[in-house]
């Protein structure tokens, strides 16, 4: 092992969490080109790791190389030398990768352009999947909100095409549907690198249909999508009223399921509630398993934040994580945005991440979110939904038709606003905080048994988040 690489490994071991270091870095090696080109080349065992390392660590390697050699050095990443079939090396160090699975070419214009020096290699089988290597089951935080969906995805990843087909994942915006199906795709790729996998956003699928139509290349289009072993299609609600796209997808769906190829679909709502989709398509979505991802509860939001910070080799104190998680409830994306803000603020001011620093960094953001929802707005929305009077939210009436919506409104107030239980009680006709507590527990229990109530809560939550 050369000196540069030993130094680099020692530094990374000190900086990264042990799990990250052992998984991604420890087994890499480093070699040098001929004497007239001493640039180091970090060798990785496969393309999955290549992509991961390139996106997360290459810049760090380059910085260390610059410091070690005292000048900028053209450090590159490369694959472990393939057996004989590999073509002649270029420039002493670059190797052509082994040929990839022989699948029909993907519709061309969407092919991503590689972005770094190491990516001069042609797109690999992994790159053609369009999967994001950051999204794995390991990096997915699990809680009550997504454990069923995760279990289903995990099972499908273990037995693609034979367990649940299609797997239909639905839930609100920014709750981790995309992460889950990328994790599924990555797990399948890891265990079956020969499988032809493709992640596609419904909008891109639509663009492919349009392109095939314009270029009269429907044969290529059909051949490609029917050649897949695993198709992951995101945000199917984008097919709304796109008849030709639905037609093509309908046929692709039939061909793939008949051939026992796996299809994964995500959507922002339950299949029967998707507007503008043909009935024959909706009925097929029911063939497999439909699972919901719900908004993460507080503990899960905290875990998500800590997990994301750890991925950046940063330790986040519980109090800071709680501050962010308590104030940003709507979705994981905005949670991540807030975390980024805190980390950037701390880095810029070269200060430790403390509760005070987090409050300072998020001053504007928290202010903006706390203005988000009023209790009156929640009461009115729930009253409208159940067609009762807003005044009933404050009244003493205890009939089920009124008491239940009132309890739901209290639960929503607790979930979606930072108001205390006493404050919520006051707003609901000066009720005691124990009444609010009881309402929240009742609704939390009932939703586990009552699918209709669960659905109502889902819809109301989405409506209130605007």
């Amino acid at each position, binding site marked *: 092992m050369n000196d540069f690489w030993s130094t680099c490994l020692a530094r990374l071991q000190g900086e990264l969490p042990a799990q990250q270091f052992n998984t991604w870095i420890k087994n890499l090696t480093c070699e040098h080109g001929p004497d007239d080109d001493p640039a180091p080349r970090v060798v990785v065992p496969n393309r999955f790791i290549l992509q991961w390392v390139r996106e997360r660590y290459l*810049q760090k390697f380059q910085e260390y190389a610059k410091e070690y050699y005292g000048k900028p050095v053209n450090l590159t990443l490369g694959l472990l030398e393939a057996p004989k079939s590999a073509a002649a090396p270029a420039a002493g160090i670059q190797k052509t990768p082994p040929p990839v699975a022989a699948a029909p070419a993907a519709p061309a214009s969407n092919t*991503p*352009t*590689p*972005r*770094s020096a190491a990516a001069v290699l042609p797109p690999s089988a992994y790159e053609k999947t*369009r999967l*994001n290597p950051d999204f794995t089951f390991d990096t997915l935080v699990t809680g009550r909100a997504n454990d069923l969906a995760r279990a289903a995805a995990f099972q499908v990843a273990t037995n693609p095409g034979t367990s649940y087909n299609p797997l239909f994942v639905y839930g609100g*915006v*920014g709750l981790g549907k995309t992460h889950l199906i990328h994790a599924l795709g990555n797990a399948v790729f890891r265990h079956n690198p020969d499988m032809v996998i493709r992640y596609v*956003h419904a*909008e*891109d699928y639509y663009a492919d249909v349009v392109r095939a139509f314009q270029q009269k290349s429907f044969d290529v289009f059909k051949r490609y999508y029917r050649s897949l072993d695993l198709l992951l299609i995101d*945000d199917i609600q984008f097919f709304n009223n796109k008849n030709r796209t639905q037609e093509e997808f309908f046929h692709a769906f039939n061909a793939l399921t008949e051939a026992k190829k796996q299809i994964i679909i995500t959507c*922002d709502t339950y299949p029967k509630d998707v507007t503008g989709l043909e009935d024959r398509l909706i009925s097929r979505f029911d063939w497999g398993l439909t699972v919901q991802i719900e908004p993460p509860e507080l503990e899960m939001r905290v875990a998500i934040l800590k997990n994301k910070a750890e991925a950046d080799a940063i330790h986040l104190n519980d109090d800071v994580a709680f501050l962010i998680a308590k104030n940003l409830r*709507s*979705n994981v*994306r*905005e949670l*991540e*945005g807030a975390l*980024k*803000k805190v980390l*950037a*603020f701390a880095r*810029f*001011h070269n200060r430790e991440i403390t509760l005070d620093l987090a409050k300072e960094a998020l001053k*504007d*953001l928290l202010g*903006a*979110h706390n203005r*988000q929802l009023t209790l009156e707005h929640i009461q009115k929305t729930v009253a409208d939904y159940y067609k009762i009077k807003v005044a009933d939210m404050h009244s003493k009436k205890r009939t089920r038709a009124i008491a239940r919506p009132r309890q739901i409104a209290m639960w929503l107030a607790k979930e979606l606003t930072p108001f205390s239980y006493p404050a919520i009680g006051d707003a609901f006709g000066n009720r005691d905080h124990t009444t609010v507590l009881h309402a929240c527990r009742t609704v939390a229990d009932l939703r586990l048994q009552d699918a209709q109530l669960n659905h109502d809560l889902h819809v109301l939550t989405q409506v209130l*988040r*605007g």
Partner: protein
Amino acid sequence: MRQIPLDIRPAPVADFANFVPGANAELVERLCHLATPLAFDALYIWGELGSGRSHLLQATAAAAGRPVTAWRGAEVGEDLPLPPGGLLIVDEVDRLSPEGQIALFRAFNTARLVGLALLMAGDAPPLHLALREDLRTRIGQALIYQVQPLSDEEKAETLARHARARGMRLEPEVITYLLRHGRRDLGSLFAVLEELDEQTLIRKRSASVALVKEILAGREETAGSP
């Protein structure tokens, strides 16, 4: 006799050098970083009209050592060119049409694959943007900065810098007067400065408090006239 000035003044350049950062130092540093080819972040900045949002976007574009494509929200149609390894700038995202919103949504999804950095600006924090929810939350996932308004001292410094860049001599008492008596958003201040520059040439007078008074009075009259 009045002098008629030739229209050969240098076009005002928006760069980081003529932006007084004030409380925006962290934002300016992030933008400088975004201009470098290895940064693949998404950044969203928002602030009131005249807070310097557009100036900062132009300055980032000018400093970028990578392909840049810049758009105003209302101009974005179905297709948004995404230069690989480049920087996509969209100002006024609050004015994106439904098609433009889908185009930006797709840019978010493609950014990772083509090594694209995104810089967006709007008039409100992501929470209050009236955009499709899937786009709004993606913007909310970006690193978000509010462009902090400059203090009066910083505005004074900004005005002095702009005046210098135009070759004007501007005494401190003129700036003080302007800040005490005129509208104090940067857009209005620059507009008065430009008029002052023009009037000093036309009337062959120095940029005095008296001339500023006349200009402000004239602007009030124009604003008050039906």
